[in-house]
């Protein structure tokens, strides 16, 4: 996928790239991560975390970007989430109704639950550094050159 992008290749039918597979996460873990990320930064009138493939970013960070303590904390937190859901609701997190998922995250967010914080931080990092997050959502337009720096052009700001 990466190489195809680098070469500017366009995927053609019959020449599709092999399906992406997570390196660190299991398939069920990957689905949980994808679901959590989308709940944190959902698609609205602009792309969301799923569109920005934040799960792939997180898998890559687990492989190469986090130290072993960070990786361990994340994987344990993920397991604990499903354990708790099984205990309370008899289902894994991804199988819960979205309203229940949101309520659970609200609980964790209010309690500043360490796993929720870590998941949220990774989601923000992955999303706002992606094309979708930085260019489409935030409309960042860096890498321009100007003859003269425009500065503030709003007379109302000077008052």
């Amino acid at each position: 996928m990466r190489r195809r992008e680098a070469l500017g290749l366009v995927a053609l039918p019959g020449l599709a790239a092999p399906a992406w597979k997570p390196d660190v996460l299991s398939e069920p873990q990957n689905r949980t991560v994808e679901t959590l990320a989308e709940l944190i930064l959902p698609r609205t009138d602009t792309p969301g975390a799923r569109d920005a493939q934040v799960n792939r970013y997180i898998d890559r960070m687990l492989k190469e970007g986090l130290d072993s303590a960070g990786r361990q904390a994340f994987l344990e937190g993920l397991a604990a989430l499903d354990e708790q859901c099984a205990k309370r609701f008899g289902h894994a997190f991804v199988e819960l109704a979205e309203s229940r998922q949101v309520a659970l995250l609200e609980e964790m967010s209010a309690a500043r639950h360490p796993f929720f914080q870590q998941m949220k931080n990774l989601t923000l990092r992955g999303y706002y550094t992606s094309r979708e997050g930085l260019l489409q959502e935030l409309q960042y337009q860096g890498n321009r050159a100007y003859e003269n720096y425009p500065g503030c052009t709003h007379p109302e700001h000077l008052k």
Partner: protein
Amino acid sequence: MKAVRYDAIVVGSGAAGGMAAYKLSKAGLKVLLLEAGPDKDPRRENFHHKMPFDLALRGAMSPQERDRYRLNKSANVYNKHVMMEDAEEPYSTPPGKPFTWVRSRVVGGKTLHWGRFSLRFSDLDFQAASRDGYGVDWPIRYAEIAPYYDFVERLIGVAGTREGLPQLPDGVFQPAVPLRCGEHQLRQGCEKLGLHLIPARVAVVTRPDFSRPKCHYCGYCGRLCCTGSMFSTRVSLIPMAAATGNLTLRPNSMVRVVLADKEGRARGVAFVDRLTRKEYEVAARVVVLGASCLESTRLLLNSRLGNSSGELGRNLCEHIMAAKISGFAPRLAGKMPAYAEDGHPGAGYIPQFQNVTAREKDFIRGYSFECSSGVSDYPGFAHGLEGFGAAFKKRVKELYPAMVTMETNGEVLARRENFVEIDPDGARDPYGIRTLRIHETFGENELRMVTHMNEKADPRTSVLDPFNRCHDVPNLLVVDGAAFPSATALEPTLTIMALAARACDHWVKQPG
């Protein structure tokens, strides 16, 4: 090495050494400039124009990389090739007193990625001790250094505005870069409080008719400047010195000791080639140290020179950047600027407003604020916002253009108990050179260190004379921040260059 007779050896190629090399080669001396690090042209070797999604790990360093720069906390993916890895030059600290040392080892030194702030000191700084009774005055007054400030500003290019403030003398300025919306909002708040917010004075070319190209405002200067508009000695003083035909630049040359003759005069230096590990000795009439505050001190301590006063390495103090205050300007929420704002080479500045005319009851000296605003390539503030979901995402987008930041600049007062010494346990760097132990009680304070040779007229209490000459060794000059008697709350680089230029002029007129 070529068998050239050198008149002068300059150690270090950053602001101090670069200026000394320029001044002395212009004066007709044959100069050997020794730089411990490699040569990297910031105009070619930079990753400026990469978006985060074009970089591995989106621009984060891997844990293995972070481990290599644990002490050098300013290192990032954009500048690490000009930053020094910890293992390259170790140092020790006493238990429980960590010390962060930002170090570059490259032709140009820290000027390749410095903050560009170029501020004149005033007599409020030079005579601070007389006013508040703490420490020592400088041996010079503003009137003596003002012509050198003029000289340096003309040479390097400083953008700014004339403001007529007593605590921040005006200089020779190129046009200032217009403030962004956020700085205008802050400025209005400042006016209500009776404070001045002025455009930052930064060493960046904004005039079309200068010796270096005009800035094109493309992005973050600290990620290395691709046009050479931002001042570094690598794109300015060093090529200008080379154009005289009198300069020999030797990168990867790690100076071990200053060599002295029987009369106690410097006769040259011994250095090791970083790449081949071969040892060399080279002679000259004068040796100029501009290796950075702590490296020049280490070199003198290792050479057992210049310390008859016992003051060498004492009074370590820093110009620090401490608290960072951030907030949102409500009027700017949801209002994206029509252009890419993040290429501003230096935004707003609130000069010291304490102890200028009235005296503060609770503290002496002062502090100032560097102010900044606008969109960046990452909304870091989002990590501090509560919640999640669609409303959270909307809030991030709204606040993205509204962020304003103020960062304090302060002074750590000179104190004898803050000092550096050669590691008493005999630790050595990979080149076999003994390393420093640094004793400072301000822990995590980062950034530029100044002061510890206490430039004074009296050789019993100081290491250097008022023209940066070593009292003990008349043909040895120390021209970097090591010469400062106090740190002040102002960025030191412009003053380091002005003093280096003045010291070299004096040496040429009256060689010791």
